[in-house]
């Protein structure tokens, strides 16, 4: 009769899943118990013979051909950014956008003769846009003040004719 508690240990021993102490215990027991030693041999042979089952893995050339087929199925990959990188990229993009907008589309005020000063500005990326677009004609002082505060843009005069 095989020692019951050792049968599982024999399998785990062959699976390389025992601690050093457990391995020593199994080895010691196998020296003393011929029935367990016989069972151990059976399991060892079973695994050894199982590994002799041939499955003929195809040669690398076959896999190489498959590799090109795999890539052909999905040739264009969209690179997904890591969240941190994506956040930094987004902030940079926003900064560039605002800098570009303030440089190219600063508001302009023009003297329009009988109507006084007018806001020529049409586009701004910030809330001030609303204010500026809504004030069509203002006096020179207001225009200067407003532009100093909002846009720091020089006031200039044009001839309405």
């Amino acid at each position, binding site marked *: 009769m095989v020692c019951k508690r050792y049968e599982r240990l024999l399998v785990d021993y062959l*699976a390389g*899943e025992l601690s050093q102490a457990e391995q020593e215990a199994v080895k010691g027991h196998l020296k003393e118990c011929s029935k367990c030693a*016989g069972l151990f041999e059976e399991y060892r042979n*079973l695994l050894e013979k*199982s590994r*002799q089952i041939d499955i003929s893995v195809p040669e690398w050339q076959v896999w190489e051909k*498959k590799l090109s087929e*795999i*890539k052909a199925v999905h040739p264009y990959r969209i690179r997904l950014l890591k969240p941190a990188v994506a956040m930094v990229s987004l902030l940079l993009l926003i900064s560039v956008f605002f800098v570009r907008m303030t440089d190219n589309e600063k508001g302009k005020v023009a003297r329009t003769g009988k109507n006084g000063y007018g806001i020529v500005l049409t586009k701004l990326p910030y809330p001030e846009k609303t204010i500026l677009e809504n004030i069509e004609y203002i006096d020179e002082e207001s225009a200067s003040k407003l532009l100093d505060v909002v846009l720091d843009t020089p006031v200039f005069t044009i001839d309405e004719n």
Partner: protein
Amino acid sequence: MRDEKKITFEGFYKDYAGKLYGVAFRMVNNRQDAMDIVQESFIRAYKNWEKFRNESAVSTWLYKITLNLSYDFLKKRSRDGILPIEKDFEDRRLDISERDIIKSDIVDSIKKEIDNLTPKQKTVFILKCYEELTYEEIARITNSRVGTVKATYFQVLQKIRKNLGGKKNGM
């Protein structure tokens, strides 16, 4: 960066294509089906390559995909009433005899025993005996507990040993 990633994928493919083929072939017992399963697994890996952080994560994921595709294949085959094709096995026997290699009866008997295991039992046995993964790795791949994997592996070995009749069959 794109080239570096490409090399990594190819390197991984080179290391694992044969291994995954072994798993798929042992599961479905057919050369062409196993090839298709491995190819599909790698297509999915290629599409998701950016998401993987290390080799361990990719290999676990790929083993899972390969096994799931094998289960799907087995289910479909069973539903369609198609019997497992033994032709490949017979062909290999022919090749082997041509190479003057004698295959013992006991090896054939073990193969039949493995073929008769349930898919879950077969999975544990393949991953432990052939892939030499740890119980913990197998548990991760199969979404099971380590204790369950351990018990399954023991039951499989015990079952095969008993069915083969122990020492009577030269074990």
